[in-house]
């Protein structure tokens, strides 16, 4: 694929910006020559049609939710309603400067205040901050809250975070970034946390546990109350990774399970788009014990005026420039407002229904290491499907059939994992077609494995050499050569 730097420069450029309408003084009169760029920039000067063609061409090399089925486990690739996009570009939101006087940003503050209320209710927790801008950012903010909590209490020896072996990679990374060490807790034969292993790991050096509920196998931790009670009894706190909220929102709440911090992924559960890797939004909900430590500023309503409250002496401070990804919050707000309680519940019911339906059909063809009721996702294994066939081969072959591969090789506790999350926005017909494709691929794996080894053949490129890319990295276009 050629890049924008391969486009031939246009002879006629300019026209984006007007001529100067004040008397020109000249750069050299206004700033010291020492500050002025000495090497001219080497950015191509292009006409607009060249730019439009290039990025339209690039867009066609992508695969989005609007292009087809996207059963990426743990990522909740649901349909992104068009209304959300229309609301986010309203000039009253998109043109608003973050340092605007609050008298000019009452609508934005009202939206943040009301969304905070919705999320508080969905989580069943004491309060919410919209500031974190991604799931991992919410985790980090949550770990900062843990740290502050124990610092204020003088419990400086609490330096360990417990993590089930099925945890997302961001969990240990976030805990470590906040200065905690990580202790892994094994799962039992049903894929759930082993309570005996938990007992063994708990002591007065434990700051808390990071849980994903349901866990990354798509299995609900039926002993969740025992788990959180044990951690609380040992003086620790419970962090809930909200990546899997799409399986139970509108039906049950993390606050009722003993969560102290819970992060939302608005870009998963609340239908805001992933944008090829962000921007997301990762608000955190907290229990009573942690409210005072939430990031500043907080949005308050006083005398019918919304205001930003910076005066929170116990706060961890800020984790982002201003108020988080506000325009993402606008989209999530529009979504929740449209769904209402009934819609929120129907979302998780249909997500769980779709997952169980697919699971029961696919387990006839693929290994299902943890058989039983699943929530919104389930994990198959590509192991043993056919001689010499890996999960990667299966994933790449799916591309040739026009579906996005599931999440693969995660969670780490399942060999050759294939993690499938269909979401509620897919029809039974789509699921049936996907199951059929998975069955065809399984047949091909046995009868004509080369088809899988060679896949994909219908994408713009075939399998890429990622080892070479790692050994000898080329990370930018060489300019001026």
């Amino acid at each position: 694929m050629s890049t924008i730097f391969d486009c031939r420069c246009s002879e006629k450029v300019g026209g984006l910006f007007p001529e100067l309408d004040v008397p020109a003084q000249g750069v050299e009169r206004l700033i010291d020559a020492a500050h002025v760029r000495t090497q001219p920039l080497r950015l191509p000067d292009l006409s607009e049609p060249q730019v439009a063609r290039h990025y339209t061409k690039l867009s066609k090399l992508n695969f989005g939710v609007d292009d087809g089925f996207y059963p990426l486990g743990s990522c909740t690739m649901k349909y992104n309603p068009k209304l959300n996009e229309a609301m986010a570009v309203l000039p009253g939101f998109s043109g608003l400067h973050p340092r605007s006087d609050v008298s000019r940003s009452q609508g934005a503050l009202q939206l943040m205040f009301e969304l905070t209320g919705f999320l508080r209710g969905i989580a069943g927790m004491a309060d919410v901050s919209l500031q974190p801008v991604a799931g991992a950012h919410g985790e980090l903010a949550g770990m900062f809250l843990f740290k502050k909590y124990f610092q204020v209490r003088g419990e400086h020896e609490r330096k360990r975070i417990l993590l089930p072996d099925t945890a997302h990679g961001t969990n240990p990374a976030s805990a470590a970034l906040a200065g905690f060490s990580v202790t892994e807790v094994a799962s039992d034969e049903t894929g759930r946390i082993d309570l005996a292993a938990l007992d063994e790991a708990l002591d007065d050096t434990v700051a808390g546990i990071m849980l994903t509920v349901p866990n990354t196998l798509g299995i609900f931790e039926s002993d969740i109350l025992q788990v959180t009670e044990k951690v609380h009894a040992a003086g620790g706190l419970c962090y809930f990774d909200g990546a899997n909220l799409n399986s139970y929102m509108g039906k049950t709440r993390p606050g009722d399970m003993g969560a102290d911090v819970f992060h939302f992924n608005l870009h998963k559960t609340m239908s805001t788009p992933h944008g090829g890797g962000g921007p997301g939004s990762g608000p955190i909900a907290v229990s009573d014990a942690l409210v005072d430590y939430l990031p500043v500023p907080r949005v308050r309503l006083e005398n019918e005026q919304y205001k930003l409250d910076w005066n929170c002496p116990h706060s961890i401070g800020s984790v982002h420039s201003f108020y988080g990804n506000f325009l993402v919050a606008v989209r999530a707000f529009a979504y929740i407002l449209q769904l209402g309680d009934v819609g929120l519940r129907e979302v998780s019911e249909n997500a769980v229904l779709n997952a169980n339906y697919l699971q029961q059909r696919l387990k006839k063809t693929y290994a299902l290491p943890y058989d039983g009721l699943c929530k919104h996702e389930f994990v198959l294994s590509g192991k043993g499907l056919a001689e010499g066939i890996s999960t990667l081969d299966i994933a790449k072959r799916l591309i040739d059939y026009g579906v996005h591969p599931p999440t693969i090789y995660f969670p780490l506790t399942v060999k050759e994992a294939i993690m499938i999350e269909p979401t509620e926005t897919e029809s039974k017909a789509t699921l049936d077609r996907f199951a059929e494709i998975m069955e065809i691929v399984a047949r091909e794996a046995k009868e004509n494995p080369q088809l899988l080894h060679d896949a994909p053949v219908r994408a713009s490129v075939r399998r890429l050499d990622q080892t070479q890319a790692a050994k000898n990295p080329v990370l930018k276009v060489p300019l001026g050569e």
Partner: protein
Amino acid sequence: MRYIPNTSADRDEMLASIGVSSIEALFADIPESVRSCFRPLGLPPRSEMEVASIVSDMADRNKPTDAVCLLGGGIYDHYVPSVVGNLLSRSEFVTAYTPYQPEISQGTLTAMFEFQTYVCELTGMDIANASMYDGATAMAEAVLMAERIRKRGAVAVPRSLFSHLRRTLDTYCWATDIQIHEMNYLPDGTADWQSLPEQLSAVVVQTPNAFGVIEPLAGLKERIGDALLIVSCNPLSLGLLQPPGAYKADIVVAEGQSLGLAMGYGGPLLGLFAAREEHLRQMPGRIAGRTVDVDGKTGYAMAAQTREQHIRRQRATSNICTNSALCALATTIYLASAGSAGLRQVAKLNLEKAHYLADRITAIDGYELAFAGDFFNEFIVNVPGDATEIHDALVQAGFAVEAPQALQSFGLDRVLRFAVTEKRTKNELDRLTRVLGGSR
């Protein structure tokens, strides 16, 4: 519900095939004691049309376009070319996930690779990542990276850092036990490095700084020993100004909003992050690399992934995962549209217009520039009399100007800060001058 395609007949069929009698049975694994605590929001479902009306009313209550914007402090009211929003709205970009499956993500990956090239060229650095959340977290991550490399537990930062950058940096440094030494500013508004402590992991500098003043960077790297030099800059100014790479910066970070992003009440924003090649293994964030497929055809894939959380877990360089990919694409399209000529032109418009307003204001009795240092598109003036009264008069007259209290933390009294972009016209600037009592 509009976004759920299953019919009730579908659902019945699916339940039968699973072998359960009701949807509720699918939730039997959640303890009853937990489920019985559930309380709904009390929120009725609404039609798309009703929601559009409610949300539009909220947007209308903000009225940002009613005022002429002179707000700055790190976020600026720049023009976004139509081509940016239009191409950015293509659903193949908007609704795609992180490019973990490179064969069907070549669009996003190629754009990431282009973005990295643009960032390197603008900043004068060797390598860049595919984006951070915003300028503030980019700076915080740069400090953490420097700490991984030098391990001295301390950094120096100027007092003239934008307040939002400092707030975020304080939080990250508190959590990681990194001590911050604050360096005061000189009378001309530039940082005073006179009493720089030794044994630092990094020295951070912001240019232009919170006073709009361009920091002189020549010779700074030489005087900070082996501490890393972290420069935070305004990328739009680099159309005109010497890039930090020319001053031997080790890490360059920036808020990318000025290059094609809406102000959006401060989010989403875009963190730019560039470094010298030798530090690649310590860089946070995703990076796209060029490679070939099995047929030898050029393609792009995520590179240097062994730094990242999904592989390295607690030993990763950062926990960052989702970043600001679509915003990085906006900036890429902005730079493709502007080119060298356009970027230089827009930078010059900012520079000239800001100086025009500064000249007009300081021609009024009692008004003077607070600092003598060179500035780009933002400056601070000392005002005669009560700054709040003058601020209120400007607001009354239809200008959006930051309240003077916002600058008190810098030890500045009786001052106002003005940012002037290419969008401000001579008429607007003259009108502002008249409100202050000037002759134009």
